[in-house]
């Protein structure tokens, strides 16, 4: 019998905190700085490495990391890191400065990876998302679809603008007589430019709505956007 053992071996593990982990910066210009704070929490010296990439979004809003050489090179043109690595003493805190080197784009979506050095085995890293947009960039969020099943409403927003935004609105449910059964505020979260994002709003079992409306909030105005029958 062939004996085989497989080992996932790791070093000691990262007691590491990073903050902020998501930075939304509008109207950025060359020379602007973003500061990340790092804290060693495990009581042991840690060597941290920093790397860059881009990120995108799937239809449910999930982050899609792009770490191919082209994405890394583009990110490195926009962001200059004050350090490529640092060593934190036990319980030490340190700041890392990210400097904007270019602003010849409407928006850029960059990820900074903070990776404690490990020789082998299990390792970890923390991803910091930078949502950068320059002057003149604007969001253009529009409701593109409202669908429903017996137990949920599906709402899709599209961002055809040049920077990220949010899809928001209010779902109202009525019974046969027109009596308002309830309202629910809907916030899809961030939608990157050129992306659409779908939200699922579960319906309570006690509700049997036969009619609904959805008002999307766009540019501060409440706009009547959709209605339907169950």
């Amino acid at each position, binding site marked *: 019998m062939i004996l085989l053992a497989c080992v996932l071996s790791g070093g000691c593990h990262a007691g590491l905190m990073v903050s902020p982990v998501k930075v939304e910066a509008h109207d950025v210009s060359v020379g602007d700085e973003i500061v990340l704070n790092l804290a060693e929490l495990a009581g042991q010296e840690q060597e941290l490495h920093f790397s860059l990439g881009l990120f995108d979004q799937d239809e449910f809003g999930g982050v899609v990391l792009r770490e191919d050489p082209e994405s890394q090179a583009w990110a490195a043109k926009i962001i200059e890191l004050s350090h490529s690595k640092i060593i934190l003493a036990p319980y030490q805190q340190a700041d890392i400065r990210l400097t904007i080197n270019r602003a010849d784009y409407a928006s850029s979506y960059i990820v900074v990876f903070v990776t404690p050095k490990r020789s082998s085995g299990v*390792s970890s890293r923390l991803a910091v998302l930078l949502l950068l947009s320059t002057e003149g960039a604007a969001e253009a969020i529009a409701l593109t679809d409202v669908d429903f099943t017996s137990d949920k409403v599906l709402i899709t927003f599209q961002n055809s603008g040049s920077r990220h935004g949010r899809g928001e609105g209010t779902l109202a449910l009525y019974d046969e007589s027109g009596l308002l059964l309830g309202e629910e505020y809907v916030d899809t979260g961030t939608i990157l430019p050129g992306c659409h994002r779908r939200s699922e709003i579960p319906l309570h079992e006690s509700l049997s709505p036969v009619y609904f409306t959805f008002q999307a909030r766009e540019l501060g105005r409440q706009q009547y956007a959709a209605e339907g029958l169950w």
Partner: protein
Amino acid sequence: MRWNLRLFQLGFFCVLVLLSTGSVAVASGDSGKVTMFVEVAPGFAISLQDSLTFPQAAPGRSVEAELDVTVWSNVDWQLRATATTVRSEDGTPHDFEGGIEVLDFESAWRNLLIGERIIRYAQQPTPSEGETISVPFRFQPGFGDGPGTYTIQVQFTVVPAL
């Protein structure tokens, strides 16, 4: 546990930014009351189990083991995992014939050697003690994998949700 205590002492990834002029006090008349403004930044931290050892496995037979990952976060987050290299006992890279899989957020076993896998998709902020996830791995050697001990490098990534 010193780790948790330290986290607590540090206010759990809270970066307090004192607004206005960098100080805090805004006097309110003669009452002696002071209004303080603080801003909590989004932050997270991760801690991993030191190692994971699978039971012995014969070719074609799969074995499972779980690895604990603890995440602290005050924003929604995702957890991903990928395996990078497989090395044999002498440290040389090994082209693994068998499979190493992870149970993803859809409760499906996914090959960990061909790309990043999402372990948790849309997690809400954690309590102060963090959230510990036992991540199941499954390993199945092939006949092309000689007897011995192999080391697989696995990397977990915590990503804030958008």
